[in-house]
């Protein structure tokens, strides 16, 4: 049974037009956690940053872990959308929007943490370069100011990259909707019609953005890593941090994407659109990133161990054998020892398999960020000042709140916008394709192929 455009419309617009009870329950529960997190932040601002567990010498803890983690997760969209778009890999079509949404929301959440962790968040705006009566500008030599520029550039780019291809789908909803929905989507669609000129301009803009957003994403997580690498702290001041963090970001991003796709497939009944081949391909990418991540960790630790520098070895043994050893080995299990067999064996590289591996990776990558930040700070150069960090209820609540917030944002997004890019999917089904893979829509489901340049049927 071939999918006609009307059927595709109906399938993919159903979540937009119909709201199930399950949706409302989920939104309510997630919303409750988010409200709790906001209330906690308010409490923290009112009472003082001491509500969190940070202390001398571990002045950064959960909040900065979350900051790096969420910014890292945001590299999902870029890889899938931009790189696969430029590589003309057609299997990406149902997946691009899911990925781009993760980027925008993860970035927004991550960008909140520099404000959450501040001692005086009410003056956070001093990092914005504006001419003020104080006559002073931000310190452009500070990695935190680089963060400001990089994250904002990436956020603006990602929002553009996400919302531009949504315009035609909003026009679609506008045509199908009635009542208040029609009014809202008429405004949102900006009067989009679909003339050849508009399509051409849209695709050119997306092509340019795909080219530009990739180096931006690389720079963003490099700059975040330099928040650590620029300080003379044992096992922070390492040249490997830039590439290491970017690889880790892409790694966690793909894992998050697989989880999001698995959940969407189940709850929005997208079994005929998000196919096992998609999970297979992403699973192979995840496997590659897991191996790459392990290579970076190995290279870094080998260099430290071999160099045998006193202060660095204190941190090295603390993570490998000392009080942080349980977390360290858990991280290795979650990021490498469990995912690699699952993803390497074709029999296990199913939708469930890749989703399980991805869940482990997400946990493992969170642990990795924590283990980079906290052990180094707790064992700096002067042993008299060593100290142990313990998170408080405030940090834990806010952390849980951000995970709930991500899920909630995703949930709300899938209600406002079709989570699979409808027009891009339809383009992939074109029978006659010059320089594109034809998709066989003949026997059964949509079967994306990756071989190019096949003659027209």
């Amino acid at each position: 049974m071939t999918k006609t455009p009307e059927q595709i419309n109906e399938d993919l617009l159903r979540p937009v037009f119909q709201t199930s009870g399950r949706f409302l329950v989920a939104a309510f529960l997630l919303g409750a956690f988010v409200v709790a997190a906001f209330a906690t932040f308010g409490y923290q601002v009112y009472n003082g940053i001491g509500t969190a567990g940070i202390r001398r010498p571990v002045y950064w803890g959960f909040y900065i872990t979350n900051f790096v983690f969420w910014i890292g997760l945001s590299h999902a969209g870029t890889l899938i959308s931009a790189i696969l778009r430029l590589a003309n890999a057609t299997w990406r079509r149902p997946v691009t929007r899911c990925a781009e949404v993760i980027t925008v929301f993860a970035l927004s959440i991550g960008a909140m943490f520099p404000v959450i962790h501040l001692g005086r968040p009410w003056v956070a705006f001093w990092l914005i370069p504006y001419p003020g009566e104080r006559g002073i500008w931000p310190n452009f030599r500070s990695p935190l100011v680089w963060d400001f520029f990089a994250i904002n550039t990436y956020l603006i780019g990602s929002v553009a990259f996400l919302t531009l291809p949504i315009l035609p789908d909003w026009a679609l909803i506008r045509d199908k909707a009635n009542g208040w929905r029609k009014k809202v989507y008429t405004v949102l669609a900006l009067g989009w019609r679909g003339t050849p000129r508009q399509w051409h301009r849209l695709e050119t803009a997306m092509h340019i953005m795909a080219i530009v957003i990739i180096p931006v994403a690389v720079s963003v997580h490099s700059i975040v890593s330099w928040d650590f690498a620029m300080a003379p702290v044992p096992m922070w001041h390492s040249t490997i941090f830039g590439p290491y963090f970017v690889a880790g970001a892409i790694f966690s991003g793909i894992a998050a994407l697989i989880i999001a796709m698995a959940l969407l497939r189940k709850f929005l009944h997208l079994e005929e659109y998000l196919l096992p081949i998609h999970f297979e391909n992403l699973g192979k990418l995840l496997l590659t990133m897991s191996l790459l991540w392990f290579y970076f960790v190995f290279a870094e630790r080998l260099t430290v161990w071999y160099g045998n520098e006193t202060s660095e070895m204190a941190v090295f043994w603390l993570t490998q054998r000392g009080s942080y050893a349980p977390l360290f080995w858990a991280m290795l299990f979650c990021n490498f020892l469990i995912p690699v067999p699952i993803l390497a064996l074709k029999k296990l590289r199913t939708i469930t398999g890749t989703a399980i591996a991805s869940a482990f990776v997400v946990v493992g990558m969170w642990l990795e960020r924590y283990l980079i930040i906290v052990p180094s700070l707790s064992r700096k150069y002067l042993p008299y000042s060593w100290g142990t960090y313990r998170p408080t209820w405030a940090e834990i609540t806010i952390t849980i709140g951000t995970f709930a917030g991500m899920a909630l944002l995703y949930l709300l997004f899938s209600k406002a916008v079709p989570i699979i890019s409808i027009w891009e999917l339809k383009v992939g089904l074109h029978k006659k394709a010059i320089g594109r893979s034809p998709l066989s829509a003949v026997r059964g489901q949509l079967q994306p192929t990756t071989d190019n340049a096949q003659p027209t049927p």
Partner: protein
Amino acid sequence: MLKVIYGLYPDPDSAQRAVNSLRGAGIDPRDIAVVSSEPFEEYDFARRDAATPMPWLAALGGVVGGVSGFLLASLTQRAYPIPTGGMAIVSLWPDGIITYELTMLGAILTSLLTLLLTARLPNWRIQLYDPAVSDGKILIGVVNPPQDLRVELEKRLHGAGGTEIKEFALR
């Protein structure tokens, strides 16, 4: 006063036949209107846009952004010079990062702006459109057809496989 007679076509092949047929009747390509719910870059009827200078404009926007970034960093640091860590007041490595980020931002914003301006968005006024396009139909029409050719054009539109022939008028 805009008047368009158009047909709705179920697939791109019939749409292409319609366009060919209209051209055969002597209609200027600029008077042929096409509206579709997906791009059909591989078909001739959809390849009617002039080459866009968007990539060049994006590159230009990047240059402007980059220069702005460098000026922002160097001029402000010189206006209120505050020494830190033994580094130069205008240190090129960090200023390079700011320059780079604003270069990319300039390219992104320029692309966005160019898209909106040249695609003439947003435009909420009534324009040539048919909701059937959302169901996958391709609209091929003739803008302001000469009165004496109307019957001939309707016949050609129908003959190419047009399921409905309609008229759109805008006063």
